[in-house]
Each structure stands twice: as structure tokens, then as C-alpha cells.
């Protein structure tokens, strides 16, 4: 049997992801892909993979995996509490954002993300995954992607490519942005909302609720009053759109978003702040700041610089 991980516990929402599956939204296929591109890139870089290599994404509680076979060179990125349990059941605290070697029989127990949602596990050489339409991202809702388009399940095996190379461990001090301000641009239907609601949206706090997953983040705060129409003719959806249904509570659409939708959008989160947004746990109080395209584009340049620095 070739080298693999045995899944002893799958975790809450563990899926394989890469940078996303594109060019198919007109057929109803959402991009999916990693939620936090910074951490996804980091875990790949720590083990010397190309940044687009498929990684294992986990949310809150991650998996418990046992290595069967030769050693593996891996990294866990994020603010993550995890242990390495060796053959003799000796437990060692794991260090995130640092590459390390796992030996045959070692278990990696990803207990939880700390005050954040997503983390990643990468392995040197990459996981053995079949591409679907050019990507190994998983879209669970449509059963598209590796593992029959599903989350990890107990007792399954995860195969990976073994490669021999000069394995140099790397370490990175990753700083999470603890600030809760999310920069947005005006949405297509910004004018549908009352003057007061437009002001409220940029001055009041909106709380992240538990109704949050890879598809969307439901917020709770001052009701946004729609003065024109509670529905629009269905139109294509863009990641980061803040749509507001009739009940006036905004929903931010995330990587597994529906491809088209008919609710008015008050704002769009800028690309540079998306990673920060998706890591906010339920109960976090967000503040939205209005910026223009110029600011968003230059913020993206800074974001990419940071990414390239890993």
C-alpha cells in the first residue's frame, strides 16, 4: 500500500481546495477554492510546493490523521492548536506556520483553530487528487471535486505523492489582522437603501452570526431598509458581495456562493480584505469602511506583496 494518511477523525468541514475552478460560472458552477488565500499560499510555500498546489482546508476543528508509510514533509498554516502523537503515544505540541517531518505511525491531531476559522495542511509533493475541470477544489453542495466532491470522512485514506528532495524546514511568523474593519466598495444596488441605512451600514457594527459557512456569512445588526425593491432581476454573483434580503440583515457571499441571485447588494468587500473577513468567528463585530476602486487596487498590491514575502 502506498503512503497515505488514514482519517481517524475527519473534523467539522475538511475539504481539499486550491485557488478555485474558473470559466464555468455561466453553467452554474461556483468558483469555490481556498477561503483564505494567504494561509493557503503559506502552507504550500512552507513545504516548497507551488502556491497553487491543492491543500487540505479545515474549519474550527480539523482532522486527526495517521501517517502510514514513509515519512512526510508537512506544514499547518493558521492560528492552530495541534498535536503530534508518535508511535509510543508521546504527545508533542505542534508548531503552526512551520514545516516539519512526520514519521510512519505518527498522528497529527488538529484540535482547533484559535480565534479564527480556517487553516491548511500542505504536504511536500502534494496530495494525490484528481482534477475536475482543471481544479482540485471541492464544492460540496454540487458534489464536485476530489473525494467525490465531499468533505473528508472517517476511515477514508488520503494518498499523497512522495518526492525525495532536500527538505529544509521553514518557519514564518504569521500575524493575523485583529482589526475588525472591512473595506468595501459601493454595491450595484447601493441606491436601493434609505439614506439612514446607507449611513448605518458604515457606522454601526454588524455581528457575524453562526449561520456562516463557505457559501456565505450572515450578519446581524441595524436593519437595512430597502426603499426601492426587495428583489431584483437575478444577476451574476461576485465573491464578497453583500446582499440584503427583505429582512434587512446583510449576507456576505463567500467562495461557494450561488452563481446568480436576486437580492439587492449594498456593498462588495475588496479583495485585499477578504482573507481577514473569512477568519472572523461568529460573534465578531464588523465595521465596514467605504473605499473607492483606486484604494482597493492599491490595497491589493500591498496584499500581494505580503503574499510574495512568505
Amino acid at each position: 500500500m502506498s503512503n497515505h494518511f488514514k482519517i481517524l477523525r475527519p473534523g467539522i468541514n475538511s475539504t481539499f481546495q486550491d485557488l478555485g475552478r474558473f470559466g464555468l460560472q455561466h453553467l452554474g458552477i461556483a468558483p469555490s477554492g481556498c477561503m483564505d488565500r494567504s494561509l493557503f499560499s503559506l502552507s504550500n510555500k512552507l513545504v516548497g510546493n507551488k502556491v497553487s498546489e491543492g491543500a487540505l482546508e479545515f474549519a474550527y476543528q480539523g482532522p486527526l490523521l495517521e501517517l502510514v508509510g514513509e515519512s512526510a514533509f508537512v506544514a499547518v498554516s493558521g492560528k492552530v492548536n495541534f498535536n503530534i502523537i508518535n508511535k509510543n503515544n508521546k504527545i508533542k505540541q505542534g508548531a503552526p506556520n512551520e514545516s516539519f517531518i512526520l514519521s510512519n505511525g505518527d498522528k497529527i491531531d488538529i484540535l482547533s483553530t484559535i480565534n479564527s476559522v480556517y487553516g491548511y495542511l500542505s504536504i511536500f509533493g502534494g496530495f494525490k487528487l484528481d482534477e475536475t475541470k482543471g481544479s482540485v477544489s471541492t464544492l460540496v453542495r454540487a458534489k464536485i471535486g476530489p473525494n467525490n466532491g465531499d468533505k473528508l470522512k472517517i476511515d477514508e485514506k488520503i494518498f499523497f505523492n512522495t518526492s525525495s528532495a532536500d527538505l529544509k524546514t521553514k518557519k514564518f511568523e504569521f500575524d493575523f489582522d485583529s482589526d475588525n474593519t472591512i473595506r468595501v466598495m459601493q454595491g450595484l444596488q447601493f441606491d436601493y437603501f434609505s439614506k439612514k441605512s446607507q449611513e448605518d451600514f458604515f457606522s454601526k457594527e454588524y455581528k457575524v452570526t453562526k449561520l456562516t459557512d463557505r457559501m456565505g456569512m450572515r450578519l446581524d445588526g441595524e436593519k437595512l431598509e430597502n426603499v426601492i425593491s426587495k428583489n431584483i432581476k437575478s444577476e451574476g454573483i461576485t465573491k464578497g458581495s453583500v446582499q440584503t434580503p427583505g429582512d434587512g440583515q446583510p449576507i456576505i457571499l463567500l467562495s461557494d456562493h450561488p452563481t446568480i441571485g436576486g437580492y439587492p447588494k449594498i456593498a462588495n468587500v475588496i479583495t485585499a480584505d477578504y482573507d481577514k473577513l473569512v477568519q472572523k468567528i461568529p460573534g465578531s463585530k464588523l465595521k465596514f469602511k467605504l473605499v473607492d476602486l483606486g484604494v482597493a487596487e492599491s490595497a491589493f498590491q500591498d496584499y500581494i506583496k505580503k503574499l510574495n514575502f512568505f
Partner: protein
Amino acid sequence: MLKKISNIGDCGITCDFGDGVDKKTNKEVIKLFNFIQESVKNKKIKGILNYTPSYNKLIINFDLGEVKSGEVIEFIKSNDYSKTVFSEKSKLVEIPICYDEEFALDIKRLEEKTKLNFNEIVKEHLNTDFFVYMIGFVPGQPFLGDLKKNLYHDRLDTPRVKINKGSVGIVEKFCTIYTFESPGGWNIIGKTPLDLFNIKKREASMLSPGDLVKFKSVKKKDLLTFKNE
């Protein structure tokens, strides 16, 4: 006609063709959609990730690391895509449908509203030359039009929690086919055994925006022997 281009955040634009929800407007949307798709294929423009047509808009998403909104807008404005021949891209697809009462869940509701009887409703539906306005919400789900006015009806007041895959529903002038089991509020008139979506196929979705559709009535017993390719 393309009325306005606006930004959607920093990595998307919307091309707005006005308020109309009709074939004429949608054909303009799909002309631009075809043009963008071709341009991406022929590497005339870089960084385009998705191009999603709907009734009266085309939304284009791009990789901000490759191309900026200003360049995408300039590309659209500087090209005369109106010459794209529309019919070249569209195909006619025949879709089998079984109107048996087991599947036509809302036929009574429709009979009451339209004052037509079951056979008349079926006949009207079969006689309609449908056009694919858009595909989405879930993979492969088509939104077809236009039904004749006498078949128009609203959504159900309370959507069903579960609608079976293959169910065919109508609302106002539109007809849809559920490609996955899902909740929904459309008036269900029948079921197709045809798999409109299969991710394993080269063309995952049988239909594309701009295609033409004609329904063909099949008997309940035919559903058992129907084979998807």
C-alpha cells in the same frame, strides 16, 4: 444595447443592458458573453476568470493580479462585438418530459389559474420554442422562456422544501428544470429523465446560455427504460 458598465468590487464588472427581461435584450447579453468567451479562448485578453450572463446583465470577474477593471472595460468598449453571429453558437436540444400526474404536482393549481385543462396546458408547453436565458443557482439549471401569456402563474406562496431532480416547473413566462434535488417555489408540471448536468462529461452542462429547447412528451413507462449517455 449595452447601456452601462459598472464595477462590482475591485475584481468584477457588470455590463448592463437595461431593464428588459425579454429575448431581444438577452440575445444582446449573450452576444457579449460569446465574444468574451472567444476572446478568453483566443488569449485576446488575460486574467478573466468568469463571465456570467443573466436576463439583462453580463457579469465579468477577473484576477486582479493579472488585469484591472479599467483594462477590461476598455477592451469591451474598443471591440465591436455586435457583429458576432448569434446563431453560430446556439444549438437545439430536445428534452423528454413526462406529464404524468405523479410528477405534475401543480397541475390543479395551474388549471384553476389559467382556465385551461390539463391537455391544453401540456399542448401549450410542448408547442413552445424555448430559449435558454441563463443557467445557474445550481450547476446546469436552465431558465427558459417564453411561455405564452395564458400559462403565466406566480410562484407558490410557500416554496416546497424538496423538489426532485428532473422536475420541470413554470413561473410567469419562464420554465426551469431542477438539475439537483433542492427547495423551490415553481409550479411543477412534469419530470424529465434526461441528466442535464454531469460534471464527468467534457461538456458538463447539456445546455448553454442562448441555446434553444423543445420539449417532447414521453410516457411514464418510458422513464424506466430511458438511458442517459
